[in-house]
């Protein structure tokens, strides 16, 4: 593993989980791919060819520099550029909470991909709950913004997200809840600050 990869994986444990869930050689679409670090890692580590979607021009140039396929598009416009089931896996990492057309995008993800992987900050984490209880909007490592400058418009808890998946008819295939880079199994909606879900179409039998 290169230094780059190690630095990435140390900084973003949710990406480690995602990478583990991507099969070797899988076709990946990474929505809101930033500088393309995950795609680059997936290509190097798993020979998984992918495309990133990113709206920010500086990030797009970074992706090109990182030799990652990137498409400069606005996720709010939907995924009409991509055909049905054209990817094995569609990833939305730490982006869900900033999306306006959340339901549309989530439905599109499982139209375009066989599976979806979604990560987001857990608003149910005890620190957030405590701050609200004390009369303040939560500010933390996962939610670093003040109320007036946050790009986040659709924050949710694990329970909220799982309700939402049920309503959309999505099946939770796997779930990983993290705090400070460690897996949280005890009271995850209270003790976990980041959640990662692997989703498929259809309800559990």
């Amino acid at each position, binding site marked *: 593993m290169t230094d780059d990869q190690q630095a990435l994986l140390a900084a973003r444990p949710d990406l480690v989980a995602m990478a583990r869930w991507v099969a070797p050689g899988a*076709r990946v679409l990474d929505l809101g791919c930033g500088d393309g670090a995950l795609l680059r890692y997936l290509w190097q580590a798993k020979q998984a060819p992918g*495309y990133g979607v990113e709206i920010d*021009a*500086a990030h*797009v*140039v970074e*992706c*090109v*520099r990182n*030799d990652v*396929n*990137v*498409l*400069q*598009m606005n996720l709010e416009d939907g995924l009409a*550029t*991509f*055909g049905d089931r*054209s990817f094995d896996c569609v990833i939305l990492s730490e982006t869900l909470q900033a999306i306006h057309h959340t339901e549309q995008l989530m439905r599109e993800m499982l139209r375009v991909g066989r599976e979806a992987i979604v990560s987001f900050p857990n608003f149910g984490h005890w620190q957030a709950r405590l701050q609200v209880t004390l009369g303040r909007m939560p500010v933390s490592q996962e939610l670093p913004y003040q109320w007036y400058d946050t790009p986040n418009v659709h924050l949710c808890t694990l329970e909220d997200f799982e309700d939402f998946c049920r309503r959309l008819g999505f099946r939770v295939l796997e779930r990983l809840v993290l705090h400070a880079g460690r897996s949280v199994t005890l009271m995850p909606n209270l003790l976990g600050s980041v959640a990662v879900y692997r989703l498929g179409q259809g309800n559990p039998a």
Partner: protein
Amino acid sequence: MNAPQPAPGSVGIVEARKASFSEPLKLKSGAVLPQFEIAYETYGELNAARSNAVLVCHALNASHHVAGHYADDPDNVGWWDNLVGPGKPLDTRRFFVIGTNYLGSCFGSTGPASVNPATGKSWGADFPLVTVEDWVEAQARLADRLGIERFAGVIGGSLGAMQALQWTLSFPERIRHAIVIAATPRLSAQNIAFNEVARQAIMTDPDFHGGHYYEKGVVPRRGLRIARMIGHITYLSDDAMMEKFGRVLRGKAGPGFDFDIDFEIESYLRYQGDKFASYFDANTYLRITKALDYYDPAADFGGDLAAALARARAAFLVVSFTSDWRFASARSREIVKALLEGRKIVSYLEIDAPQGHDAFLMDDPRYHGALRAYFANVAL
């Protein structure tokens, strides 16, 4: 005499060359060009492996003079000099860059003003209609002549982008990377309509003489200038034009209540029209606009662009500009969608630039930054 000092990053003094081909070229129309010449320029050095060649295809009114300047004409700087040169995004220290002039041009390659070997006179109206596919065929002959089996890349904007795209279809094995900028996979009805107005302006000029104006010693200048004015309007965005000219009056305090120039934009269009009419050939203009109109690689595939692009082997970088209404971003996204459907390697940039179609000639830092990063990753 002291040679002018090359600007930093300039390839410096360049020379236009010509390659002659005596093997007849069968055109898409069925007509045959018995022989032809292609004008070209090169910058940088071809490496020993012959793996670093990049072909630059030009748009409607440009030429093979992509970068640098001529020893006897230092002000005549190549049209893409901001992109091509030592240390520039398309770095001539690393790449061997070839600028080539399309067939039918009036700047050096065989065209309507050239001598028809069958008659000993200028071809004039008898010069056949050439297509994007024909240009690529002719350029492939040039590549053969230069000993380039496979290009590291082909790049072009607008009509040049059509050539870049067509290269990946006519010769899939010969192109590793295609950079397709401000492109469309086919002209819209509106695009064709603008071209037809331009053609009508030329063909109804009394000095046109059915295209045989060379022998009459005249030029359909009025038609050409109107054609250019129309073209120019489509190259700029509404905002860019308003920004540049606004409603500013030219040397007047108020409207003149006559048909002299009132507004700066009128002066600008007349100036552009006059300048164009002094150097561009009307028969070339007619043919180039037809080449644009006819280009439609999906036509042979029932309109299925993905099927048309299926044979491409290149990696693609597609770039569009949000203010371009001539070939809007949606047209480029059609290309991207078709490439994705074919599981091609593709990246797409949609640059939020204000200049309209002409933005592809500007040096927007995001645009040039991406091209620089892209070329840096092209293996040699």
